[in-house]
């Protein structure tokens, strides 16, 4: 174990001994499970969303499905999981157990109601029984009643109102958990802030369909002949999560602590969320695939990274990548480069040739005799597709070309046809924005 770096972090005034939390899901369903996760190294938990017992929760069966990539399992998970199906009494008793036995591991109570009184009731109950924070679930992707789950997340007035109602009755910090099933998360996040939210967590699952049965035509999970659009999670959604975290972190008006969620399995995944502005991260799918033990590698991996970089405090890394995150218009298009090949490493599979032919600049010639690619530098688009398919690490890299270097234009197939084209050059002046 690595000792001389500090992974602890302050999140809305609550201290976590590391930034790694269980998110609200099947992995945080009971005190027995959560206790084991704490023993494994997780610093805190967002306990599975409490139910007020007003409506009984019955889970569909089966409740999940997964998407594999080739022989790689669980690139994504699909679930029609509901909020906790345990009674509020049982869940609150579990809080007491955890507070008694793991006093230095914060409990964040996830709650979801349908109307103000229910939100308030659950918030109070959680606080009164030891919850250190609340997470308002505005994002459960398979609620069909207007005003619940992700539907709230898409109805900004409700979101603000429920947040305000909760804030009024509790003194513990309140996080609003956002749905990614929306174009710009800054808008609902600002409403949550107006309602008094102390932090934002994102993302909940992305609405999706994992697969469709080819024999029965039922989308999966197949619940006795019926499928539904439901929540997708796992490594496949990580880019979506990073997008929302980064765009909220860049929003100066929002300026709230962020908890990053979505496809985190390794310390690198977690660190990327943090570099883009999250100060804690939450995990479910990674645990559903590999178990609580993965936190061991997150802690050790992140610690070693910090030692190598001479970073003493994890909080120093939060948002570190944001200054480098721009709109694409900021790119310096004067500077151009190409792919370069270290041919000593080449094994002659020719995949680079195939993708360059069919998806890029036809910049590679194939020597069938020696089974080696030959790059025509002036045609290289520097898309780097060849590098992505190359099975040998570091064989292909990107190199900058001198200022005077010019890329060949894509050749016209038969320029003799040019005389037949029907076309006038576009000459009108206009603004550099979209107007009708």
């Amino acid at each position, binding site marked *: 174990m690595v000792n001389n770096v500090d992974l602890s972090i302050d999140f809305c005034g609550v201290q976590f001994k590391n930034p790694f939390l269980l998110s609200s899901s099947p992995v945080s369903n009971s005190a027995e499970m959560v206790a084991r996760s704490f023993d494994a190294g997780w610093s805190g938990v967002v306990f599975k969303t409490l139910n007020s017992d007003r409506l009984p929760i019955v889970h569909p069966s089966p409740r999940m499905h997964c998407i594999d990539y080739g022989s790689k399992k669980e690139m994504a998970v699909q679930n029609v999981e509901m909020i906790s199906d345990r009674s509020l009494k049982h869940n609150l008793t579990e809080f007491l157990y955890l507070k008694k036995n793991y006093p230095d591991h914060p409990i964040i109570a996830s709650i979801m109601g349908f109307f103000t009184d229910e939100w308030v009731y659950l918030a109070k109950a959680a606080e009164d029984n030891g919850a250190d924070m609340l997470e308002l679930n505005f994002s459960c992707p398979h609620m069909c009643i207007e005003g619940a789950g992700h539907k709230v997340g898409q109805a900004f007035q409700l979101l603000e109102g429920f947040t305000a109602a909760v804030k009024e009755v509790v003194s513990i910090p309140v996080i609003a958990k956002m749905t990614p099933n929306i174009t710009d998360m800054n808008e609902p996040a600002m409403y949550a802030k107006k309602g008094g939210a102390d932090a934002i967590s994102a993302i909940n699952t992305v609405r999706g369909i994992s697969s469709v049965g080819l024999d029965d035509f039922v989308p999966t999970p197949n619940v006795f002949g019926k499928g539904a659009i439901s929540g997708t999670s796992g490594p496949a959604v990580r880019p979506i999560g990073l997008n929302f975290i980064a765009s909220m972190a860049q929003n100066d008006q929002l300026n709230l602590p962020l908890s990053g969620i979505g496809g985190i399995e390794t310390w690198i995944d977690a660190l990327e969320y943090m570099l883009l502005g999250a100060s804690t991260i939450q995990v479910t799918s990674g645990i559903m695939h590999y178990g609580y033990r993965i936190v061991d590698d997150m802690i050790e991996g992140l610690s070693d990274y910090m030692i190598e970089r001479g970073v003493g405090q994890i909080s120093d890394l939060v948002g570190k990548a944001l200054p480098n995150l721009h709109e694409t218009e900021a790119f310096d298009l004067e500077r151009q480069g190409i792919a370069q090949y270290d041919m000593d490493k080449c094994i002659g599979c020719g995949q680079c040739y195939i993708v360059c032919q069919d998806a890029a600049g036809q910049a590679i010639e194939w020597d*069938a005799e020696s089974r080696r690619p030959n790059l025509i530098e002036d045609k290289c688009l520097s898309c780097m597709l060849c590098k992505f398919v190359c099975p*040998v690490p570091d064989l292909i890299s990107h190199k900058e070309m001198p200022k005077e270097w010019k890329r060949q234009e894509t050749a016209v197939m038969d320029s003799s046809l040019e005389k037949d084209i029907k076309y006038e050059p576009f000459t009108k002046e206009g603004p550099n924005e979209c107007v009708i």
Partner: protein
Amino acid sequence: MSHLDKFKEMRKGLDLVQAIAEADRCLLCHDAPCSRGCPADTKPAEFIRKLRFKNITGAIRTIKENNILGGACGVLCPTSRLCEEKCSAMFKSQNRPAGADRPIQIGEIQRFLVEHSWQRSVRIFEKPEPRSEKIAVVGSGPGGLSCAAELAKEGYQVTIFEGRPQPGGVLRYGVVSYRFDMNFLEHELEDVKALGIKFQCNSPIEGKNAAEKLLQDGFDAVFLAPGLWDAATIKPDGKNIQGLFSSVDYLSALRDGRFEKMEKNIKGKAVAVIGGGSVAMDCIESAVRLGAKDVYLIYRRSYSQMPAEPDERIEALEAGVHFVLLNQPLDYVTAKKDRLKGLKLVRTRLGALDASGRRRPEEIAGSEWTLDADVVIEAIGNKAPDESPEWYPKVDVDGNKLIKADPETGRTSVPGLFAGGDIVRGPALVVQAVQDGKVAARAIKEYLKQ
């Protein structure tokens, strides 16, 4: 599973998940070396790609369209020096990472796909429009089956003449069951039979002019692929010696009604096998499995000169076979009633290179000795029957009585008579015979157009 079941059944192949995982490792090369390495043009790069893209029926179609015995080849091919030899997944570069020396298990994937087709009852070939041309195929081994299938797929009327009671040739009578079992053979034969080929077993095409006569008996073309079934021996007058077998006899017995008798011959006995090729390896390993007390491999050269595949040699050593190298068999020692008692040997040393490019074994004078043995199996090569040229007198043969046929077409010196497989090549691989059958079928179609 009893030890006899183990003897009679081959080990399980890959399942779907394993096959997909293996296909996942494939680099999907451009102009793939595996496809170039298949003597029968089975197109491994194509069927692996199809498997990778979940086009499983298509993958099976690629195999079966190009190699009707794709299952047998998947099991029996020495893939490490064919399709798998230049597999890019071995990362043969100056910077090969440790452990990256495993080719894709192409033979295993091929076997899986063919077995999967039987499990799922995938039918690849539609019934073709029947044609009037009649073709006779002599021999139902890999060469004959391949040629027959190729022609039958296009509606030609094909009759296979087989001398033995059951079809399959070397696939039935020349391999051991734990390598290639009857169940597998029958399934693969079903694929051939489904094409509407007529099988005439117990019908050797022998006797004066027998093969050429087929052309006069209403067949428009003939493909000769009878294989090589006469065994070379160090003692041509030793037929009456009890306990002396040729590899042909021995291996055939393990595949037909004589199994139990042969098992009794071997169990608890000292068995010596003469030879250094793949057939000798099958003989020694099977003798170990049948419970021989001691199994000796007698080879006149040294370990590295053996023609057997490296993995076969290692397996035999691991199985407990005693390799008696650098020893030349001279004669047999018998007791009463011609009962075999021992094998007279003389030690050799390696001298200068011979025509095969291997160092020639030279006998060491005065070093004769006798190895006690109850059973000796001679696995020193198969040859054409001495009288075989009479069956096709106008066909040119070479000094070893092998038929001279054009490798591009299988044409012999007699128009309408084509030949392939071991009777042309000498002892060769199943996959090479398959290719000969395909090549000849193409040439036969051309010939019939004229």
